[in-house]
């Protein structure tokens, strides 16, 4: 069930009022929301709801086991077993075939024929997000950030809550479980902000991302060597805008929907292409993942505590695994390593820390923005190109300067501009709009979403492509 579909509109039209009708009966409300979330997940593959259930029950029990032991070594042993079980499940579904193929190809390269065999099972949608939510819970229990909850329902709700279930944002267990304790306060619904997050998300996904994808970017990446150098440059920037508009749209809609139901999710994007360093980029892009990787991987590895070389090693491991989290392919690994290398180089150059911009002059900041944006966009080519041959061909053709003609149509150019505006328009414009909406009469509150969704649906291309991050 995709957000920008009639099916979801009907689903939410039922879930929204029922949730608030049950608000005074918190347990029943959570039962209802868990049931709704499982129904939402079952829309793809009903049998995989069992995976949700098993993950919830297992991690519920694992948290108690971790908490049961007082000895740190025992607690750590149980934690490692639980982490291994969670990652084992992820590895089985997501990475087995990739590693099997890589191993067989490696043996073949030295003249040995080894047949490990492949497994043919469907990849459960959103298994990476589901696993990271579960890990957040048991690691927080191990760290005594939270006590294990006695309510299995709460864990089922935390892991399965439908707005974040498929593509995040990754919500920390301690932040979410605190919100499940009692009825939610309707006064905390930020109606204007939620409605504009949802409408803005729909616009970014349905209009900008979809048209950029079908109208230009897909064609360029399908056969890079058949395109001009200029089109490949536009394709690179086009994909940068597409993936931002696609992924940020999903999490904007998720945040808006959760807030309408009374729950708060963390911000996930903050004008990432305004970043003036790669470190700054990761503080603005998929913020819930980058902070997860920092807190649950980089810091446990030692962070920056054990000297310069160890810090560089930890950054590279974190970013390489972060890349591989996106999918089982060498391209994702290269993409992660590129970002890791850039972060290491920035540290070497002293471009780091919260106040890096303040220490740099305006010109240096501008150069920082320019270099960062080019680096991030170039790295996206690895993320998008379907194979090694594809990205090799992409870069070879782009840098060859073979031809400077372009197939960008005026319509695609307009979409490019709209995508760029998502980063140029000042946030206060949106805030003013949200405020006006909040102050508007009820009839206007009904009319605005209706008209905007209608206009988007009229202007939309036929069919809605799945969100890019669904595959992760």
């Amino acid at each position, binding site marked *: 069930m995709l957000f920008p579909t009639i099916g979801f509109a009907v689903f939410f039209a039922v879930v929204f009022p029922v949730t608030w009708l049950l608000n005074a009966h918190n347990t029943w409300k959570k039962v209802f929301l868990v049931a709704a979330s499982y129904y939402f997940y079952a829309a793809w593959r009903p049998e995989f709801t069992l995976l949700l259930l098993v993950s919830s029950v297992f991690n519920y029990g694992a948290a108690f086991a971790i908490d049961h032991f007082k000895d740190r070594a025992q607690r750590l042993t149980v934690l490692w077993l639980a982490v291994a079980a969670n990652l084992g499940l992820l590895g089985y579904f997501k990475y087995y075939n990739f590693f099997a193929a890589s191993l067989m190809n490696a043996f073949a390269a030295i003249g040995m024929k080894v047949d490990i065999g492949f497994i043919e099972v469907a990849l459960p949608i959103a298994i990476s997000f589901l696993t990271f939510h579960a890990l957040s819970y048991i690691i927080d229990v191990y760290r005594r950030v939270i006590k294990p909850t006695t309510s299995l329902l709460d864990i089922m709700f935390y892991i399965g809550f439908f707005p974040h279930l498929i593509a995040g944002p990754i919500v920390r267990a301690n932040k979410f479980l605190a919100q499940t304790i009692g009825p939610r306060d*309707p006064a905390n619904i930020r109606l204007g902000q939620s409605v504009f997050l949802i409408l803005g998300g729909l616009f970014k996904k349905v209009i900008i991302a979809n048209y950029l994808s079908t109208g230009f970017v897909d064609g360029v990446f399908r056969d890079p060597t058949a395109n001009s150098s200029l089109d490949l440059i536009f394709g690179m920037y086009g994909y940068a805008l597409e993936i931002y508009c696609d992924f940020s749209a999903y999490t904007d809609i998720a945040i808006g929907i959760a807030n309408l139901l009374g729950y708060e999710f963390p911000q996930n994007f903050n004008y990432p292409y305004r970043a003036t360093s790669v470190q700054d980029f990761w503080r603005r892009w998929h913020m819930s993942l980058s902070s997860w990787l920092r807190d649950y991987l980089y810091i446990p590895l030692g962070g920056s505590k054990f000297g310069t070389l160890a810090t560089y090693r930890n950054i590279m491991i974190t970013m390489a695994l972060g890349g591989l989290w996106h999918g089982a392919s060498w391209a994702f690994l290269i993409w992660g390593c590129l970002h890791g290398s850039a972060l290491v180089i920035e540290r070497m150059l002293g471009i780091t820390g919260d106040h890096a911009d303040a220490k740099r002059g305006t010109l240096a900041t501008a150069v920082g923005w320019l270099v960062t944006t080019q680096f991030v966009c170039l790295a996206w080519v690895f993320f998008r190109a379907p194979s090694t041959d594809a990205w090799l061909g992409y870069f070879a053709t782009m840098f060859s300067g073979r031809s400077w003609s372009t197939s960008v149509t005026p319509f695609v150019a307009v979409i490019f501009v709209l995508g760029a505006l998502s980063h140029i328009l000042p946030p206060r414009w949106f805030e003013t709009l949200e405020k006006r909406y909040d102050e508007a009469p009820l009839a206007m509150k009904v009319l605005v979403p209706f008209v905007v969704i209608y206009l988007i649906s009229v202007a939309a291309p036929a069919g809605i492509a799945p969100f890019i991050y669904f595959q992760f």
Partner: protein
Amino acid sequence: MVFRSGWGSGIGMGDRWRRAFGAASALGVACLVLSLFLPAFSTPCLAAAAAGGDATSKIRIAFAGDSIVDNYWSGIERIVDGNACLKNTIELGRFARNGTGLTRGDRVYWPREIRRIDDVFKPTLSVVSIGLNDRQFIVDGTGARTAWGAPDWTDKYRHELDEFLKAAVATKAVVLMVGMPAMREAIDNTDIDGKNAMFAAAIAALGDPNLHYVEPWRLHADGAETFASYGPDKSGRLVQIRTPDGQHFTVAGEDLAAGYLFPKIVEALDAAGKNLDQCLTNLTKQSKDEQ
């Protein structure tokens, strides 16, 4: 945009509950009304734009059907783009309509759509693949419904298929209807086997010389075909050839399927008097060798 603490909903009504229900009714009404009316407003794909280009004497090949045909189009496009002679001789038209089939005439009625494609593109040859999304109730061109699993479902589907095939041959283009390849799920494969057999039988029954059934691409030339998400690419390296949904092709898979399909297209064009020999010094031989 950042959520700021303490920013209330500001609906401007009395107590909290009234505000909550005000919000509920606003969103609920909007969602329900939209859910009722949106299908009527949805804009059809302007696929004709993809088929633009000059009105010269190029050989036009249309790719029509569901999302699988997009994979074939993509693979064939790379073959054509990689050969300057083919690129000057052939124009491809992309007319896939994702999520459609012969069952849901209320969304896309393919007998009408294939005529529309003929009007806007005038194909010399059409590659058609359809049926991937057809395990569901049927809504025919008049809006009449037949429930999935109803006793007359198969007869009704065959009727829809015949209507589509008649419309396709009426275009005067050569039509290659490609069977659906093996899928990951057993339930899909059972369905596909039945449909492929029905397609072959319906085409044979029509007996039109311009209409041909093409067996689906197979990973293994011999034996029972089973789904494989990984397989050897052109160089023999093991790569992912099918997408995680267990149905479509990855780019490497598209190239394999196109390598199988392209000689069939060449052969059909040749039979229709459109010879591509001048462009195919090595290509056809290479594709045949791969098979």
